[in-house]
């Protein structure tokens, strides 16, 4: 085939891709006969309401000397690991506010941390492009530092996010600025699979966030600077199961919905969205009006244990509590008493394993624990 012919075919193929994409977009739009809030209203649901002393800050975890960038709870109830600009991981007992470990990191530029399912190890990653594992039961070295027990190297860009595969301390998934996600075997330190990357149909921008399905740990979702979220099956690394379009900015945060059939996203476009993994439908957009066109970015999200509440942290210090069914903000933790310092970015948040507490981490260097202290009505 001549070069000119190849060029012609390439042009035609590109046009075909564009046209098919547009067909797909139109067909999806036609199937969106309602969103969750319209449907819920039609079924007589009314928004959740909170009294002024219902959701309260019941602990402030002080100890970091730099911005908090990431946090993760243990799979049992009360411990948290946090990562900070001060180059340390701290392990806390959130109930007593005590620090059980303060780990000085070999590379201070940390972006993410995770607790292993058994609670015996923590992982972290950042600008060094490596995911480091620390065994909390190891003896400290001569300088009193906990040694790295395993380094997972191979990414060609920063590690933005890491999460252990549930029920085992042996595998974890990372997301990276090199546009890929990787499933690691921690015992060997080797990559089991790489999702996306050159020659594969993966993300076309930095991957910022990852969330593994709690109901089916073979499925995980990633969010990227390419404005999409992608669903992956760990058995099929060559292409994503589905790509979810809709956001107009970097997707900073992804989190599976409690039932495992939906997931939420948070983006630089200021919105959160809920997608259905089976059909690909965008079920709901959670967005607020903003004066003077200054749209705060969504930095982090978490669902309450039933999924009725969506907690979203924003770059302007807001921490909105959304009623996911009615798509209304029912509370802003950022404006409550004892909240983080005014207008400092909420960088991370997460729910305890039993759903009884939310932890928020902020650029004000603190972590705060929020719980329900009001009268509970059982229906």
């Amino acid at each position: 085939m001549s070069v000119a012919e190849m060029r012609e075919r390439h042009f035609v193929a590109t046009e075909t891709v564009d046209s098919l994409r547009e067909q797909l977009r139109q067909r999806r739009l036609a199937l969106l006969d309602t969103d969750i809030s319209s449907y819920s209203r039609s079924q007589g649901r009314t928004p959740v309401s909170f009294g002024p002393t219902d959701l309260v800050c019941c602990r402030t975890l002080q100890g970091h000397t730099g911005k908090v960038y990431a946090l993760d709870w243990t799979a049992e109830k009360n411990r948290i690991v946090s990562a900070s600009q001060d180059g340390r991981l701290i392990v806390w007992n959130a109930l007593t506010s005590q620090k059980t470990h303060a780990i000085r990191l070999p590379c201070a530029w940390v972006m993410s941390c995770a607790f292993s399912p058994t609670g015996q190890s923590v992982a972290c990653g950042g600008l060094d492009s490596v995911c480091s594992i620390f065994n909390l039961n190891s003896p400290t070295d001569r300088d009193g530092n906990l040694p790295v027990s395993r380094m997972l190297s191979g990414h060609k860009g920063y590690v933005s996010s890491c999460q252990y595969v549930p029920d085992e301390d042996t595998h974890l998934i990372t997301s990276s600025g090199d546009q890929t996600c990787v499933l690691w075997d921690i015992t060997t330190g080797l990559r089991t699979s790489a999702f996306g990357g050159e020659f594969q149909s993966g993300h076309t921008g930095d991957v910022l966030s990852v969330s593994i399905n709690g109901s089916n740990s073979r499925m995980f979702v990633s969010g990227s600077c390419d404005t999409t979220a992608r669903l992956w099956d760990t058995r099929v690394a060559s292409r994503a199961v589905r790509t979810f379009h809709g956001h107009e900015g970097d997707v900073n945060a992804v989190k599976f919905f409690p039932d495992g059939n939906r997931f939420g996203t948070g983006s630089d476009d200021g919105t959160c969205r809920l997608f259905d993994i089976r059909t690909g439908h965008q079920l709901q957009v959670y967005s607020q009006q903003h004066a003077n066109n200054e749209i705060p970015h969504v930095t982090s999200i978490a669902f309450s244990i039933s999924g009725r509440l969506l907690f979203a942290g924003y770059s302007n210090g807001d921490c909105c509590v959304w009623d996911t069914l009615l798509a209304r903000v029912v509370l802003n933790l950022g404006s409550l008493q004892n909240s983080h310092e005014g207008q400092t970015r909420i960088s991370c948040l997460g729910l305890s394993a039993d759903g009884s507490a939310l932890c928020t981490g902020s650029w004000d260097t603190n972590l705060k624990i929020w719980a329900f202290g009001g009268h509970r009505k059982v229906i």
Partner: protein
Amino acid sequence: MDEQEESQPSAATEGIDGRVAEHQIREEGEQDVNGQTQARIESSPNFIGRHRMAAAMSHLHNQINIIQEELDLLETYGESSLVCKEVILSVESIPDPLLTETIGPVEISWDRWFKATNNSRSNKRWI
């Protein structure tokens, strides 16, 4: 005839779905319209090597297959209202400690954040 490969990263495998490649091809197309010779084009710094072009084509064909599959599957899915119904059912079936109204059972441990901790109890002194 030898073809020069461009020195910048492959447009074919840059993840812009062939658009950069397309732009460069269009540039060459314009050169064609201006009546430049094949030899001139092949020595142009924007010329994409045959192999890279083939890789770009393969990538585009993958994209076409993926999107076509999704279009076919979409025909089998119902409207979003069916899914919304599932969401409400799921949300209302799980006890939630952070809600003012929730189904049971309620766990006593949900309120541990507001109880005195072990530390404070151990500070009591017996005279």
